[in-house]
């Protein structure tokens, strides 16, 4: 049972669903205590479904919570404290005075049966908050996680707004107010392209033309 719970916790935490873990736990606790029994009795099918999902998940992830996997997982969630800026299990710099000690400490904590949070807390106490390789999902650190997705959401909104405003933009009209027929867009595009080309090389051509005209004028004696 311990290993099953452990596996479930590992799976959920691996997905960053700490809250989901606590929510599941509290619901389970309520059910065991008999509270909310009336509600649950009304929904045996849902209860069975929950049980099925839980069993399947635990079955699927059986073994994922063994110590070597947890060692690897936790070791990759912490930095080496020597200042090499490398993940604990990836620090291999010669003569590092920290990584071996920290790995031993991690193994000892796992052997004691401590849960992940407790182990990480212990390391924070010993080496400071920078030992955790990513911001925690607490307090101001939440901002670190939220901002990228907020930026993406803002960007999507902005692009949708731009696309809609472009689509709704009125078709360019002629000087006398007569709208350009849609069927001529291709033709007009071609004209625009030529016009742009003319603008690009036009100035030089214009100067050349003016110079040649000046020469003609001078040659003609006016």
């Amino acid at each position: 049972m311990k290993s099953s719970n452990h596996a479930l916790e590992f799976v959920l935490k691996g997905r960053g669903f700490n809250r989901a873990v606590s929510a599941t736990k509290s619901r389970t606790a309520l059910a065991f205590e008999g509270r909310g029994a009336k509600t649950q009795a009304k929904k045996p099918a849902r209860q069975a479904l929950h049980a099925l999902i839980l069993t399947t998940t635990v079955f699927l992830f059986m073994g994922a919570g063994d110590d070597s996997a947890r060692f690897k997982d936790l070791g990759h969630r912490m930095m080496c404290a020597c200042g090499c800026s490398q993940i604990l299990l990836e620090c291999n710099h010669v003569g590092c005075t920290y990584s071996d000690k920290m790995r031993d400490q991690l193994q000892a904590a796992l052997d004691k049966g401590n849960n992940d949070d407790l182990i990480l807390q212990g390391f924070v106490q010993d080496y400071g908050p920078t030992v955790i390789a990513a911001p925690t999902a607490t307090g101001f650190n939440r901002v670190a996680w939220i901002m990228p997705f907020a930026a993406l959401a803002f960007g999507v909104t902005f692009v949708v707004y731009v696309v809609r405003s472009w689509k709704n933009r009125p078709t360019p009209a002629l000087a006398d107010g007569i709208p350009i027929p849609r069927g001529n867009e291709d033709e007009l595009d071609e004209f625009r392209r030529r016009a742009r080309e003319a603008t690009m090389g036009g100035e030089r051509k214009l100067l050349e033309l003016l110079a040649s005209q000046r020469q003609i004028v001078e040659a003609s004696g006016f």
Partner: protein
Amino acid sequence: MSQIGSFALLLALGLSAYSFLAGLLALFSKDAASARLGETARRAGIATFAAVLLAAIVLVVSAFSDDFSIAYIFHHSNRDLPPAYKFAVLWSGQEGSLLFWSLLLAGYGFVLRLRYKTDQQLFAHASVVIAAVQVFFLLILNFAAHPFGVIQGPLPQDGTGLNPLLQYPEMVIHPPMLYLGYVGFTVPFAFALGALIMKYPGEKWIHITRRWTMVTWCFLTVGVFLGAHWAYAVLGWGGYWGWDPVENASLMPWLTGTAFLHSVMMQEKRGMLKVWNMALIFATFLLSMVGTFLTRSGVISSVHAFAQSSIGSWFLVFIALTLAVCTYFLVLNRSHLKSEHKLEALVSRESSFLFNNLLLLTLCFTILWGTFFPILSEFVQGHKVTVGPPFFNRVAVPVALLLLLLTAIGPLLAWRKTSLESLKRNFLYPAIGALSIGGMMILFGVRPWEDPSYFYATMAAVLSALVMFTVISEFLRGGRVIAGKTQQNLFSAMLQLCHRNTRRYGGYIVHFGVALVVIGILGTPFNKEVEKEMGFGDKISIGPYTLVCQSYTQDDNPNYGNEWAIINVFRGGKQITTMYPERRFYKASQQPQTLPRIYPSFREDLFLVTDVYLVYEGKNETTGRPIIKAHLNPLVPWIWIGLIIMVFGTIVALVPNAVAVQVAATTPVRAPAHVGAGD
């Protein structure tokens, strides 16, 4: 020697300052003398290159002649340093690398000023912008990070040597490539700012800078990947990308530069996104500066920050000033940058470029945010937090996967409008192929539902396959049309197709390379590693391999002493190779260094190639026995192959288009709209 170098730097500063001020005066002056003044500014810019080159030569000659009276040479070289690394001393330390930055910028400026006849006014504006950047770097070199400072007191007999991590062949190539990329973006930036200031009509500045931008992007790509390969081959932790701040700093301008390369096509083809493109190229240049600032200021701790000093404040001022100037002109002349067309349909090439830009920029923002969050945290909470690989992997990977999806779909969309019917027709077979790859992965035991990393790996495999299949289908479809009309074989027809629109098909080849790179990366969750003390005859089993320690041996040379482990690698009972992981002890710097050895299993696996990666970690202090760490890193070699293909694709895109295909038929060829219909 130091006096010649110092004089050359002062002269360069004077010349570039003159080039900037006189050029500026000439631009805004209306009298007849302004043309002559502008010409002197141009020549001063050219002469700046000669002066900076002289300073760089002096520094290199000082390294070769072991002139330890110069502090920089004393700290970064020693008598027994091999010649290649003595040359690399130029960019191995802070002062030298800033000089190298300045040299490359002067070199770019030199070429630009020689080609000024293409468009004198625009080039004059760009020249002034480049001169301004040059002045900034020369000010730092003369007053904050002087490379020719001399040692006080008795002359040292030998230098303290080059950082052992930098004594690797790639270190001779990686920094120049990266710097060519960083510095190179100054050129399109200068043209863009110049065009904005003078309200340049049309898109000619984009045509002029297209090649500069692509070449620069290619250099930056090679620089970033060589950096990753250096980390893989030297640092010995078995990985190639650690989301280190300095790695991130090189990736950010690459992302915005990539976004610019895509969105600029919309301006060329449709006269759209003009403000956006300006903002992108400004951002790319500024992020290049941020990269140099991060590497050199020491504001954020990094495994790559080889120098820490006070020049950070110089960079901050320069970045703020540049940002202010760019914003000012962008706001002032925004009316000049109005779009000429409107978007006609949501399912179109234009909207795919918009979303492509959005995702690239989100990725860039995420990396910037993660890189600087520790500083923000210290400011707000009073203590730093670490933002390392777990954060970036969790946040950046989903966005990157969406980008990959768009890379697959985007090329199938036509400009203006794409019917869902044609999209379905073009997309069906690649999608079936890609999904079958995902199915095969599950069949062979990958369980995407077991772990997020497996899920991402499966998604990445499916999407990479989708990109590759769409690229192949585009080549095949176009090739078949040409083959049908010209009676050539399919391969020749595809070559001709590619030559007809090099930019489009070169781009597809780059996309193919990107997909290969992603395939190389997706092997990460399946990495294995074993660490063991190994005496003579001891074995390690890892995956299908058995590693047997044959012996250890030592060697010595004037630069370092070293020790090798001799490890025989067996697979299926048959010896396939012998590997020699190494440990060195550098005499001048008194620093040890491990050098891993890598064996890619192309002969045994081909497509599912795996790197056997061995590190000789040292000796157990208690038992005295050597420790060997073995990694199996599946698919990694595809990353480097992907890079080669990306470079090849860029070169193809730089080749001018061939004239339209000659057709023997009497009737004119009417190729389908999607064949060579645009970039």
